């Protein structure tokens, strides 16, 4: 926070760390299957640091790309920015509550797509009446008209992600975080959603895009953050950061130990 930017900040991430506490079985899958192999020795609490002392400020009009290898803490960081995950230390400030779109399980697996649209919209704060009017539009956006009366548990992960994106895009968000959610759709859907994203950005919205696709990051973002083992490794110009990231990835994939 030494140099004060004259631009208007939208999101401030201040020294955020997130630690997961998980139960470790104390036994490795490939461990001996001897007398104690099948019996978990001691289940112990294990702390995993997913995000470590991350700080950055996002200014109005920025579209932030977030890159990093699997397990680098991207999704964890995004979920804490969205307020869906409690941080261990540090703070997040934002001009309005960010919305996260991520690939994941169905909202309510046993309910139909249509019912999921209704409930999802109402959880976002819409009234029942307005959702009744919007169900068809949302189903259409997701391209799921024929499947809309099937339980969501029967959807493929791509279909589920399309539905979730379609529900979320129904609302105008000032701050939107997209975690790989667009990667699963087909080309048509991607075009539709990218158009919608451009529209949201034009309304002075801030977008975070987590992706493994360097091309789509370069295309849509004007700033890129590279996370590595829970820490920021680089933050800045998209071309420079993605270039460095690519070189780094190439170097580890050709190194003899991998």
């Amino acid at each position, binding site marked *: 926070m030494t140099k004060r930017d004259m631009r208007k900040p939208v999101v401030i991430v*201040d020294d955020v760390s997130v630690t997961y506490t998980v139960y470790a079985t104390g036994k490795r899958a490939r461990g001996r299957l001897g007398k104690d192999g099948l019996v978990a020795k001691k289940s112990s609490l294990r702390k995993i640091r997913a995000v470590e002392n991350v700080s950055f400020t996002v200014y109005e009009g920025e579209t932030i790309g977030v890159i990093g290898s699997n397990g680098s803490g991207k999704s964890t960081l995004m979920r804490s920015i969205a*307020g869906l995950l409690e941080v261990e230390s540090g703070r997040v400030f934002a001009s309005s509550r*960010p919305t996260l779109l*991520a690939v994941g399980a169905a909202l*309510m697996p046993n309910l139909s797509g249509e019912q999921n649209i209704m409930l999802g919209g*109402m959880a*976002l704060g819409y009234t029942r009446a307005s959702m009744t009017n919007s169900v068809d539009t949302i189903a259409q956006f997701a391209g799921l008209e024929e499947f809309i009366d099937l339980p969501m548990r029967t959807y493929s992960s791509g279909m589920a992600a399309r539905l979730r994106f379609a529900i979320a895009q129904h609302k105008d968000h000032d701050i939107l975080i997209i975690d790989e959610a667009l990667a699963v759709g087909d080309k048509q859907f991607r075009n539709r959603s990218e158009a919608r994203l451009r529209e949201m950005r034009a309304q002075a919205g801030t977008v975070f895009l987590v992706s493994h696709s360097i091309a789509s990051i370069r295309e849509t973002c004007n700033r890129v953050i590279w996370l590595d083992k829970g820490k920021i490794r680089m933050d800045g110009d998209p071309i420079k950061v993605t270039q460095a990231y690519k070189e780094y990835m190439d170097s580890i994939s050709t190194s003899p130990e991998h």
Partner: protein
Amino acid sequence: MADTIDEYAGEHGLRRIGTRPRLGNYIAEAWRRREFSWTMALLSRRSRHARTRLGVWWSVLLPLLQSMVYGLIFGVLLGSHRSPDFIPFLVTGVFLFTFVSGSFSAGALSISANAGLLRSINFPRIVLPVSAVVEQLLNLLGTLPILFVVALAFDLSVKVEFLLFPLVIALLALFGLGVALIASRLTVDVRDLSKLIPFVTRILFYVSGVFYNPERLGIDNPIIVGAMELNPVYAFLSLARGTLIAGSEVTIFHWIVAGSWTLVLLVLGTVYFWRAEERYGND
């Protein structure tokens, strides 16, 4: 340094994310989503039996079948407390107890059962246990016609106290909500507790006078009698029986017991649940 960030954020109208709102705002926000709780209860009730032929009718049939089993065991086979009003006594007990145990277990599971929703959308988490209790209440309301028929069949008059019956149910609903709120956070804090749900339910079933009248058991140990009288579930069952069954009475004492428990559990439950708001859906 921290202060400067606070100032800088405040200057530009940024608010902290991931902290719970104040209790008043929280309740107001939850109240604004009441339609959501209601719709969710309706839909999940329908989907729960979606793959069965009888569908929602199961929510009526199961307590009825249960009453029959207990009636057979305790009324006919053991026949210990056979009195003319045993059937309406038992049916009232089983139907109302089904609501209490349902609120307890559905409330306890309401957070983990909706992980998908919790991980993607921000909303006051309290609407989940609320909706679980509303669903149980709908089930209870569905069984009431049977209860009335049974009560009438054994005693062809309607008591004046019957006018109080809706009040008993309304208070019971709030009691169920209090139970659900506490259970839902407890199982999030200590997941092992979810394993104890059937066990606790069973104990509660045996100590709440669902299928026996403690006054007729001839227990004279003052501690046991006192504990029984202070048991809120027993108080609710007694109140409901008092409004329906000729030989039972509605007593002020049971109103006080039921009312106090409801008030305490509801206030405590709301605050207790709210205090962990940012933790739900963390895993």
